[in-house]
């Protein structure tokens, strides 16, 4: 593969960071249609909102350290867990990996100069910013911040006097941004793959971004119309979900989860793609079961779109319906397990280099497995009735979304940071940050499994004294976790400012296309579009040697 790649001269072609377009300074960034610059814009915005979400989570956790009032009143607490959820879900995990790393690396990984619709790409960033600002404005306006929980369940979301409509409109705009990104990626993958890159020669992260993009396109409009209907309901009292006027609130739950369940696959699939990139590079082995990993992404996208009602087992549903949704829920575990087994099989007998990205990837596998298996437990009807609406669900969700997607995003950040900025971070500090994150995360969320199992309801402001010890441990964990986050981000920011310069094209010895272009990549990535001859992740030399040593033994 490498012979076919043209070698752009770093001196003659300025990197995308130095490239002078029609606009200068800050305008050169916020008006740029370069997918790499848009990726960086997203990175800054998303990490900012992440820190806002972390702050709400931290304060919420602090309130729960002891029973009764600690630092805030119940109404503030209700607002805080809602804002934590809304910001983390709509502004951090959903756009997260696709918007930052998808934008930056999808065109490079398939050998294209940009995405299919660069201007639409920039528009999606503006919609993201507008949605984010609307969400912030809804916190500050009189009426008070939204207090419905991120699920906006009717009838409370119609009755409450807080700024629900504005927050819902923010989520609607963010959905539009997500649709445009998805639409752009589907078209790009179909139209702009480099010559020779057939479907089964695409890197695995492309497979997962492609599957995600389809879910974004097909599922997001449902939440769009649902949120719109709630806004209309609040404004005009049409009655579509209002039992007093004949409407059915359970229908709202169905429409909400028809999107919001596939949305968790929008969140996790791109992270799985990142892990599939990182594992073979640091194990120096060809990925095990390429086709299975690729197609399991598609399978997750398909089955994941058909399981929404498992959020509603206690909301009233026919036995047949419950049975079907329970079965489908367990089926989703199969493609997820296929990925986990293939990743571990890739690591087996690899020559493993325990660098920071791999540490995060391994933590992903560990935490995602816990989160995934507890998810199967919830798919079991009899068990779900017991643990529904307890902190067991909160623990499961955070193990998948933070322990999975969050750690996946951090893994991607450490893996691609040198390529994106041409600077290297301090590996020692990044590893300490990782351990703080890993230990803090598990201390924070594991006690929630136990207390949820013992009956601690989720979203409660106060609790019985028997749960105090779990809440106390959990809050201590949140402090360790946040120390880790601050150390990690501080390390990366200082690396960007005064880190060691990297000009080496291939920081980690990867075999995918991004490691064949300049560091940082030039404007439009390639001088000549490369021709692809082989599947990605070929570490034949290494494997031949392994075979030889085995024969000698």
């Amino acid at each position, binding site marked *: 593969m490498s012979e076919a790649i043209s070698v752009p001269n770093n001196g003659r072609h300025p990197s995308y960071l130095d490239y002078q377009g029609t606009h200068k300074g800050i305008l050169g960034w916020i008006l740029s249609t370069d997918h790499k610059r848009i990726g960086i814009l997203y990175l800054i915005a998303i990490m900012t909102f992440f820190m806002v979400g972390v702050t709400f989570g931290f304060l919420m956790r602090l309130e729960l350290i002891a029973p009764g009032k600690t630092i805030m009143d119940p109404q503030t607490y209700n607002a805080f867990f809602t804002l934590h959820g809304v910001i983390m879900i709509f502004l951090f995990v959903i756009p997260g990996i696709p918007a930052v790393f998808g934008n930056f690396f999808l065109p490079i990984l398939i050998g294209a100069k940009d995405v299919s619709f660069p201007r639409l790409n920039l528009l999606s960033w503006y919609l993201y910013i507008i949605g984010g600002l609307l969400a912030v404005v809804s916190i500050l306006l009189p009426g008070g911040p939204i207090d419905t929980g991120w699920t906006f369940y009717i009838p409370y979301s119609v009755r409450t006097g807080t700024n629900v409509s504005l927050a819902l409109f923010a989520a609607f705009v963010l959905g539009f941004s997500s649709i445009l990104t998805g639409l752009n990626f589907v078209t790009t993958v179909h139209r702009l793959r480099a010559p020779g890159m057939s479907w089964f020669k695409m890197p695995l992260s492309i497979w997962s971004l492609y599957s995600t993009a389809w879910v974004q396109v097909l599922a997001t*409009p449902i939440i769009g119309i649902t949120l719109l*209907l709630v806004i209309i309901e609040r404004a005009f009292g049409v009655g579509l979900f209002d039992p007093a006027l*004949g409407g059915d609130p359970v229908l709202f739950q169905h429409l909400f989860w028809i999107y919001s369940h596939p949305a968790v696959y929008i969140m996790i699939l791109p992270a799985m793609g990142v892990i599939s990139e990182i594992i073979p590079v640091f194990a120096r082995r060809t990925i095990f079961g390429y086709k299975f990993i690729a197609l399991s992404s598609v399978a997750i996208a398909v089955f994941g779109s058909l399981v929404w009602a498992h959020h509603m087992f206690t909301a009233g549903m026919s036995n047949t319906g419950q049975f079907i949704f329970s079965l489908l829920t367990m089926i989703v575990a199969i493609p997820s397990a296929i990925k986990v087994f293939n990743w571990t099989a890739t690591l087996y007998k690899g020559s493993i280099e325990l660098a920071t990205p791999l540490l995060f990837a391994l933590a992903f596998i560990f935490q995602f497995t816990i989160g995934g298996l507890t998810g199967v437990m919830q798919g079991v009807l009899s068990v779900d009735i017991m643990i529904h609406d307890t902190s067991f669900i909160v623990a499961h969700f955070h193990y998948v979304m933070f322990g999975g997607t969050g750690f996946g995003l951090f893994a991607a950040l450490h893996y691609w940071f040198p390529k994106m900025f041409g600077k290297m971070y301090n590996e020692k500090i990044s590893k300490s940050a990782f351990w703080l994150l890993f230990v803090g995360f598990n201390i924070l969320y594991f006690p929630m499994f136990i207390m949820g199992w013992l009956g601690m309801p989720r979203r409660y402001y106060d609790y019985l004294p028997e749960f105090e010890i779990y809440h106390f441990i959990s809050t201590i964990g949140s402090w360790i976790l946040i120390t880790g986050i601050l150390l990690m981000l501080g390390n990366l920011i200082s690396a960007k400012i005064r880190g060691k310069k990297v000009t080496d094209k291939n920081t980690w010895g990867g075999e995918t296309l991004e490691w064949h272009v300049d560091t940082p990549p030039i404007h439009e990535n390639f001088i000549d579009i490369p021709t692809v001859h082989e599947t990605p992740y070929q570490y034949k030399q290494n494997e031949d040697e392994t075979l030889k040593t085995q024969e000698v033994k």
Partner: protein
Amino acid sequence: MSSQEQTAAAHVHRDDVGARMGMWLFLFTELILFGGMFILYSIYRYMYPDAFHLAAKELNTIVGTFNTAILLTSSLTMVLAITAIQRKQKALSIFFQVITIVLALGFMVNKYFEWGAKFHHGIYPGSDTLLAKPAGEILFFGLYYVMTGLHGLHVIIGVVLIGIMAGYTSKGIINSNSYVKLESAGLYWHLVDIIWIFLFPLFYLIT
């Protein structure tokens, strides 16, 4: 093609198939957006068949039919506009685009009078007359206003879109070599049309 033109073509990325694909994906999202409401309609119709039957009788089938005819004709003129530009008849294409806009506005005027008459009879969300009716009728008119309202919004967006296209055509940005923008606007317009084709029988014809 001269060599100069060739280098220019190499720098400007143009992918008509990709553009069309993007438009089709966008149309999927629109279909699913309305799909959510069609789900609500079918479930409430199943829950309240009698009330839906009674309420549908209050809608004027003649006005509905007239509007259907208008919208179908506008789809025809849109196709004619695209065919005209393919045959390098710029003025004719602009003419058909303007006719499409006029028909769309005619549809909206009709809609205005239709809604106005309903309001006049006191049938609108939250009105005392409507709230006095059985639950199924409240939902029928709720859906009627929300679905035709959102469809009307799409008609207005379509008018703006085709207006911009007419401007592009007169400036020559849309020409016989490059008309994918007009085609995409046309696809959008047909979508607005097809959604109406479903709304019309659901609200006016099934009584």
